[in-house]
């Protein structure tokens, strides 16, 4: 009961924080509020983080983690650019292929984790660097840029004059992910694995297969985020995804998803995306450097988990606590 109520409480608290934050910036930061359309267009700056956060949520709900999202997005963007510029492929075909590649990279992550039994932490830490090297190698000295107006619509365009395309896509995706997690068999299995892997196994869930699919999803959304970034900047750089990881994880955790798996929902993550996005933009407009916002994000990450630990619905006995601080490092035999 506590966790159900708490889920509601956490979401409501996030909503209040979002409103307060937004209002605060409007009042205290000149230049922040730029009319209704202007406000909505702010989202274009931070929604790529949100795309990654959606996919990452699925992985974290299983109790795992994916540190390679940044490099996957950069690599996907580079691949798309090369396909278009060096091979003359139609841009939309290139986009589809690039996103698919992201899925494949995620699947490789999943294989390393489920077949080679390397823990998600180390596995994705290592693949992060492998993928990013490949990205840099492919990009070469001067990565391609300039993909045309049609493509640019994704990142910078607007529908009906004032709704940014990114926002539209994000809302649709958020709804889709929410349905996926709460209403489908797949989502149910993910949550079961996150709460109690053994019990899921005993209930007939193919744990390894579901986990692999989670990493594929994470790879797909990361790749998609890379594409959006490419559209927004009308250029690609192999390291353009590097900034995604920290903020996306923070969005997931702030959104109420437990780092140990099982607990939490997409609604919270969506609110957290908005909160961190507004925070980031507001601070930039107020004149703080990018670095400061990054540091603040790190601080928020740490505080969210600490606060969540305080109110953990899993109970607080020392035995469990002792086991928990090594929880993200699963033993070789689980």
């Amino acid at each position, binding site marked *: 009961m506590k966790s159900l109520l708490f889920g509601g409480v956490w979401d409501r608290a996030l909503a209040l924080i979002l409103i307060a934050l937004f209002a605060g910036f409007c009042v205290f930061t000149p230049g922040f509020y730029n009319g209704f359309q202007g406000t909505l267009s702010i989202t274009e700056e931070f929604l790529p983080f949100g795309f990654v956060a959606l996919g990452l949520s699925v992985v974290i709900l299983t109790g795992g*983690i994916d540190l390679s999202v940044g490099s996957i997005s950069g690599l996907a963007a580079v691949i798309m650019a090369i396909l278009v510029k060096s091979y003359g492929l139609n841009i939309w075909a290139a986009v589809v292929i690039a996103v698919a590649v992201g899925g494949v990279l995620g699947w490789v992550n999943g294989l*390393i984790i489920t077949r*080679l*039994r*390397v*823990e998600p*932490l*180390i*596995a994705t*830490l*290592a*693949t*992060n*660097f*492998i993928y*990013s*090297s*490949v990205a*840099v*190698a492919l990009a070469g000295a001067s990565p391609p840029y300039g993909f045309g107006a049609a493509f640019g619509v994704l990142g910078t365009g607007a529908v009906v004059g004032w709704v940014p395309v990114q926002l539209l896509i994000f809302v649709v995706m958020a709804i889709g992910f929410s349905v996926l997690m709460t209403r489908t068999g797949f989502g149910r299995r993910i949550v079961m694995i996150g709460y109690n892997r053994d019990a899921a196994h005993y209930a007939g869930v193919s744990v390894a297969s579901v986990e692999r699919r989670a990493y594929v999803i994470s790879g797909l959304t990361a790749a998609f985020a890379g594409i959006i970034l490419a559209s927004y900047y009308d250029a690609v750089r192999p390291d353009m995804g590097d900034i995604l990881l*920290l903020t996306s*994880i923070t969005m997931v*955790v702030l959104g109420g998803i437990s*780092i140990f798996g099982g607990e939490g929902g997409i609604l919270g993550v969506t609110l957290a995306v908005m909160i961190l996005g507004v925070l980031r933009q507001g601070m930039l407009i107020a004149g703080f*450097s990018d*670095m*400061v916002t*990054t*540091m603040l*994000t*790190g*601080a928020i*990450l*740490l505080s969210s*988990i*600490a606060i969540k*630990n305080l109110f953990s619905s899993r109970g607080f006995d*020392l*035995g469990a*606590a*002792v*086991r*928990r*601080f*090594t*929880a*993200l*490092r699963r*033993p*070789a035999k689980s």
Partner: protein
Amino acid sequence: MSSTIAAMPEPGRRAKSRRRRELREVTLLIATFAVIFGVGLLRPSFMSFSNLEFMVLSSVVLGLVGISQTFVIMTRGIDLSVSAVLGLSAMVFGLLSTTNNMPVWQALPLCMLVGAVLGCFNGFLVAWAKIPPIIATLGTYSLYGGLTFIYSNGLQVDQVSQDFENFGNANLIPGLPIPTPVIALLIVSVFAWFVLNHMKYGRNILAIGNNASAAYNAGISVRRTLLGVYTISGALAAFAGLIFVAYTGSATATTGTGDHVELQSIAVALIGGTAIAGGRGNLAGTVIGSVFLSVVITALVFLQVPAIWYSAGEGAMILIAVTLGARQGAKS
């Protein structure tokens, strides 16, 4: 008298595990020499004295963070913030040497103190706030990296005072051609080895890594031990940063983090034989491993392999080390 339970079929199993560990260390040494001679054949200047000196000195930095990472991994944790602490220390004390003329003998204890405080915060997050080490140190990685940017305010270190330069390059004992940093690494290694093998604190670290609740039940203070481990990690990382800036005379806001020193330190610890699951460490392996990695990276530079492949190689090395290590652990 009752009959005795038969001795285990193979006498001296401990000798066997020790042999396996020594095998790894020897293998690494052989591999290192193989790379040196192999690349030396292709590019003779690789084996020049100045290059060898260079490789040894860069392995000092790597060795120091490798040792800190080894301690943390032994407790089943991980410390991603070592590179940020290294960079911060390099930048801060590099600047202090030029702008404020801070002498080395003042900078040394001060930098270790700063590192200890930063590490202590990590320890607090892990042991008290119960935040998983990966997340805690990911958070502090960004925090400390940001501090470096703020402190430097766009500045860079292009040179350091003579004092620092001597510390980084000169031989400590006149006549003995061993640069000071190498001696520093040797001292730290010996000290670390002593703590790990001959002090209660070090044994507590291993106990916790093996089975934290059994350690707790036996009366070991898990929290305090963890706090200490991360504090040490921070102090050593800061020390490594000082040596780096003293030796190279340069530091930027992305020193350490740019080269992903944290990844290298993990690779070095794993290759050296420390188990990723904790409870088993190999300091000698870490140190030799850092020489090995340093040689390999320099070799890649010499062979003009694009720098981009370095971290891919490190990533691959980690995967291989973990997979093989798991098999070995299961076998023994």
